[in-house]
């Protein structure tokens, strides 16, 4: 295992090992602040490395096709994986879409569904041209003439600033692809990729049953590459600086950097750019350290995994390292749970929220998640029955992997990991009733929850 230096230093631009990449233009705590405009963006990162279209060059398109194939090779060699949660190899996705039948479509997913995540919004607000460069490059790679940038429709300011950024590029004649900014419903499952495709196609923003898979038949029935906006921003840098440069950060099996949102009992909550392979403990210290003795860390978000603090401290942020502790990067969310909080109560509230956020389409999710939420609430707030844990454990296999999308699986994963990470706690609840932590205010944000528990 290679020892990986963590990035504490800030250099502008492409920098050396350990310096920020996506966040290179942004100083300080990476929250709020102004947008990096097109001029500043090009000064920081250099021009968009896109060959001129054949009609402006007098070519016949053959060299363009070779260039597109070279770009896909480059992304494949970089080892970049999707940063939206599933972690699928980005180059392989581009290749399969490029090989599909019909004119391809590129969709950039910036509709961060995870309430505890802020990285995609940060990127879109502060460094939109990295994302737009990535869209342009992905479109070139797969031969798309049509692209969509999907964000939450209720964020009017973001939509307006993105439209402005797209317009600035149009004036500069940068993109060979028409980029449409699309606002979708602010709802957990609406940001799932089949839901986005159905919404763009004029249907409801709800997940659909696969097959057909999006990369084969997506927008307008055409092969569609749906990529997270951070993934595309990485492609913007890989196209400029190469795959070897990308691999200078991270580990051989998890190269590059990633954005992580750190919240909870932490001194400086915010979005941090980390090298993959960084131990969670190092990131927590970079964020100023915990504000209270930590009990556990939620890794990956609301479809993520609770890790006990001692496991989390040493766990490295990469797909394979987290897999060995049965966790996953997800969308790069870390929530530090203080000793005084009740992890089971946090879990119960999130599962209740997820149960309410379902699309209402699949039976196991429609009936299973409320049952799971109810069983968790009974254990947390009443307890004392002695069979609460068993009830929860028996519900989980009745729900997981039985929906059309992964929404129910996320909730069961969270619940199952809570029973493991807070095993002693769960037993105490089950035998003797609620702990003092259940009265603490909710640490994990529950949108629209108000004061309801």
């Amino acid at each position, binding site marked *: 295992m290679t020892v990986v230096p963590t990035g504490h230093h800030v250099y502008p631009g492409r920098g050396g090992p350990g310096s920020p990449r996506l966040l290179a233009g942004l100083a300080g705590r990476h929250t709020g602040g102004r947008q990096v405009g097109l001029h500043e963006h090009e000064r920081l990162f250099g021009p968009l490395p896109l060959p001129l279209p054949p009609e402006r060059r007098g070519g016949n398109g053959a060299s363009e096709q070779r260039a597109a194939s070279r770009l896909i090779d480059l992304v494949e060699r970089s080892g970049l994986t999707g940063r939206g949660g599933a972690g699928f190899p980005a180059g392989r996705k581009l290749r399969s879409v490029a090989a599909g039948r019909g004119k391809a479509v590129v969709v950039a997913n910036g509709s961060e569904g995870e309430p505890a995540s802020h990285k995609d919004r940060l990127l879109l607000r502060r460094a939109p041209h990295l994302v737009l460069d990535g869209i342009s490059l992905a479109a070139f790679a797969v031969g798309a003439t049509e692209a969509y940038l999907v964000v939450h429709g209720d964020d009017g300011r973001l939509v307006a600033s993105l439209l402005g950024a797209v317009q600035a590029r149009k004036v500069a004649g940068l993109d060979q692809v028409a980029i449409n900014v699309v606002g979708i419903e602010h709802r957990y499952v609406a940001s799932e990729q089949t839901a986005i495709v159905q919404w763009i196609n004029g249907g409801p923003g709800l997940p659909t049953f696969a097959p057909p898979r999006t990369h084969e038949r997506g927008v307008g029935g055409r092969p569609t590459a749906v990529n997270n906006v951070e993934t595309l921003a990485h492609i913007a840098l890989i196209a400029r600086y190469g795959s070897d440069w990308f691999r200078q950060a991270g580990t051989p099996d998890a190269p590059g950097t990633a954005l992580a949102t750190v919240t909870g009992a932490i001194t400086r909550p915010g979005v941090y750019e980390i090298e993959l392979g960084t131990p969670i403990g190092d990131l927590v210290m970079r964020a100023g350290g915990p504000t209270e003795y930590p009990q556990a860390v939620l890794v990956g978000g609301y479809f993520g995994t609770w890790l006990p603090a001692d496991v989390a401290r040493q766990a490295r942020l990469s797909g394979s390292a987290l897999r060995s502790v049965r966790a996953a990067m997800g969308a790069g969310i870390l929530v530090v749970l203080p000793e005084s909080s009740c992890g089971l109560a946090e879990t119960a509230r999130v599962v209740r929220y997820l149960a309410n956020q379902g699309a209402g389409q*699949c039976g196991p999710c429609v009936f*299973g998640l409320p049952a799971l939420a109810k069983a968790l609430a009974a254990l947390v707030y009443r307890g004392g029955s002695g069979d609460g844990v068993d009830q929860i454990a028996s519900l989980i296999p009745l729900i997981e992997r039985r929906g059309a999308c992964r929404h129910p699986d996320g909730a069961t994963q969270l619940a199952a990991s809570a029973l493991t990470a807070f095993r002693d706690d769960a037993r105490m609840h089950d035998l003797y009733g609620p702990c003092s932590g259940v009265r603490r205010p909710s640490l994990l944000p529950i949108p629209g929850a108000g004061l309801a528990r």
Partner: protein
Amino acid sequence: MFWRPQTVAASYSGSGVGTVSERLRVNPIACTAHGMCAELLPEFIALDPWGYPIVPDEPVPDDLRGLAARAVAVCPALALMITKGTAEGR
């Protein structure tokens, strides 16, 4: 060594449908818990507490293939399907 057509040998080894494995898949969006599939294939399909079928992600046993095909045909919601070969994804 004589050339022997593989398909002939294979067709006598099982139910006569060949060696391609078949799996049942339910479209959970379409399924509305009629339960007819579990009625036809109680050895293979169980119902959850809410009446929705639990379909194992494994090949349908050869002797149940006929019933599996019938279950697909009679599903009122058209939610059941047979996929050939290995399960793709899930």
